[in-house]
């Protein structure tokens, strides 16, 4: 059968972009155009940084081998081990044979093709989205891809970063480019000042609840406003990380002094004249004042409370002070049936106050919340306390370096004296691929990013929370905010201030 092919002739994109006002995302896109697609064919986009891990790369390397293709740019490629790795006894062979084989396959592929790799036990090993920024490889104005949907994390630096499938991993290994369709842009405006005890995690959970799990589909999100500007890089990473949970492949924050201060001096950050050139360029990236977004969303930071999920997708969330919603009140029929199904899976009843929900486990970790500031926030609440009886509490740093940094600050001792487990770096209980899993029916307050059915282990039940809520919950055994730890007060702001003092 013959078909008429769309016109695929493209033009080399060497002309400077039009002088029309542009958003941050459009600027980064334009500066990576290798070939401008015409008449329905995609643009060919150059990729500055390709991160690899063991799960989504073996079949891509197989493809290269079959076609006799090399890795085009080894100097833009880096691998680490995170999804399968155990977080205990990391000096011993991995007990699970299929996990061990997958890790060994990555090591073999890295050796065969010459890819830089940081294996379990290496000081630079860790969750791939913690490692890139930590090394100073993630920087403003670049494109970053990885066979992992949480690659959106790197957008916190003003990079265009998104997850790809294994076929695309192979494509980037072979060509250092991807054919991509242009996207729409959505501004997420968060104005105001977060109250004490309210964090970046609460912002993004509230955003997802507002726009839904499909709301960002086809868009690149740009997080803007005074509440975003006030966040640290760790906080911005938490927000961008969960863009995919709103259906958006990428989320971005314009770079500013906070970004430059974080980067300056890191191992792979530019130096000398290169640094000056880079900063001069980065300062041009912010969305032009008169640029327009295809969609805009507004969120009032002043009004935000700690936010948690009750269901089985990240959009099913409420403020912690609220009860579980009644599906009968949901107008959309699909969403109503999804809510009914979720409550059944979660073994919850509509109308129950969220704060009455008892948990069996608390997981503090994942690419969403395992950086040093997350661990500090968690430790600040649990310090000198004892965990609730019968609750399993696991604290998993995002990288070997974060673990070392935390230990230098004594966080490991605070964690173990609290009665929690202090683990080695990895994805751990965020997804059921390594030994850290929930048992069927177990309920967990988790600082991770997905509350899907069975995500943390078959039959496990997940409530997504911030590190502060995780800490307070670990102390009380029920979903709690730090405000609840102050005797005689309920949600009063002065109580929160005492907690944070």
């Amino acid at each position, binding site marked *: 059968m013959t078909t008429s092919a769309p016109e695929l002739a493209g033009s*080399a994109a060497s002309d400077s972009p039009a002088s029309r006002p542009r958003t941050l995302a459009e600027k980064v896109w334009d500066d990576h155009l290798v070939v401008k697609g015409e008449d329905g064919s995609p643009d060919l986009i150059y990729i500055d940084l390709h991160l690899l891990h063991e799960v989504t790369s073996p*079949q891509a390397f197989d493809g290269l081998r079959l076609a006799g293709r090399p890795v085009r740019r080894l100097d833009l490629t880096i691998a680490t081990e995170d999804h399968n790795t155990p977080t205990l006894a990391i000096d011993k062979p991995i007990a699970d044979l299929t996990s061990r084989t997958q890790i060994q396959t990555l090591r073999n592929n890295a050796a065969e093709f010459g890819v830089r790799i940081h294996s379990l036990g290496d000081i630079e090993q860790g969750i791939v989205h913690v490692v890139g920024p930590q090394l100073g490889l993630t920087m403003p104005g670049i494109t970053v891809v990885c066979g992992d949907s949480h690659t959106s994390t790197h957008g916190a630096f003003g990079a265009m970063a998104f997850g790809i499938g294994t076929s695309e991993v192979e494509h980037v290994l*072979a060509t*250092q480019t991807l054919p991509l369709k242009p996207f729409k842009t959505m501004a997420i405006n968060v104005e105001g000042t977060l109250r004490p005890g309210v964090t970046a995690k609460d912002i993004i959970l509230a955003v997802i609840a507002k726009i839904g799990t*499909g709301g960002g589909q086809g868009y690149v999100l740009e997080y803007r406003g005074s509440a975003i500007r006030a966040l640290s890089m760790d906080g911005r990473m938490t927000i961008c990380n969960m863009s995919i949970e709103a259906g958006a492949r990428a989320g971005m924050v314009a770079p500013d002094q906070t970004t430059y201060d974080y980067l300056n001096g890191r191992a792979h950050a530019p130096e000398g004249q290169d640094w000056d050139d880079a900063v001069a360029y980065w300062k041009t990236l912010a969305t032009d004042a008169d640029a327009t977004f295809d969609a805009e969303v507004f969120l009032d930071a002043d009004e935000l409370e700690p936010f948690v999920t009750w269901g089985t997708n990240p959009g099913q969330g409420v403020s912690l002070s609220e009860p579980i919603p009644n599906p009968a009140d949901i107008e959309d029929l699909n969403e109503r049936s999804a809510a009914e199904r979720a409550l059944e899976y979660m073994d919850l009843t509509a109308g129950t106050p969220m704060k009455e929900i008892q948990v069996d486990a608390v997981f503090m970790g994942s690419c969403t919340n395992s950086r040093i500031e997350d661990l500090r926030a968690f430790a600040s609440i649990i310090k000198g306390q004892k965990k609730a009886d019968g609750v399993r509490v696991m604290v998993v740093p995002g990288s070997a370096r974060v673990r070392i940094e935390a230990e230098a600050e004594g966080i490991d001792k605070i964690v173990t004296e609290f009665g929690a487990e202090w683990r080695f770096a990895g994805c751990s209980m965020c997804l059921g*691929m390594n030994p850290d899993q929930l048992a069927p029916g177990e309920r967990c307050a988790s600082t991770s990013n997905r509350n899907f059915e069975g995500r943390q282990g078959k039959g496990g039940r997940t409530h997504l929370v911030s590190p502060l809520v995780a800490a307070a919950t670990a102390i009380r055994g029920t979903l709690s905010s730090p405000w609840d730890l102050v005797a005689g007060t309920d949600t009063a702001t002065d109580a929160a201030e005492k907690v944070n003092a």
Partner: protein
Amino acid sequence: MDKVSVVTGPAVPLPLSNVDTDQIIPAVFLKRVTKTGFDDALFYGWRQDPDFVINQPAYATGGILIAGPDFGTGSSREHAVWALRDFGFNAVLSPRFGDIFRGNSGKQGLLAGQISESDAEKIWALIEAQPGIEISVDLIARNATIGELTVPFEIDDYTRWRLLEGLDDIGLTLRDEAHITEFESRREPWRPKTLPVK
């Protein structure tokens, strides 16, 4: 990749929204290093229920999946597409797809067509009236026919063309290699390099 033009098979109803890729294939099955052999892992959690749709004899060899909105959200795992293909699904029709899943489908010969919610409802009703009824998905005409009903579906021109021609993306891109090399020659020195190790 094999060429795809018209695919026909039993219409398999999955009238649920937000079927994320963790449901299509749980993470525990992602440890394999091959692209095949994932058929037993498809919908692993749900298929423990003997009444789950793919356990019914009429649907035991796959066909065309008719799913609710936001099918394939979440994780980027291409294993979700491999598992659907391995089981015998050649197409999925849904009112909305997760972006990464849709992209992965187009690279593995799985036709992902976007239909309206009301057409999805109509198809589910026809299946309920006649379980096992066949549906024919025509990529050339961009429509699907089930019984007397023909509904249009959306798929972007480029993906449609690549599926129809069975084209390999990498081969297509490498035709532009001169442009890539030229772009690389203009790349600023401050941009990240993973080597040499620092």
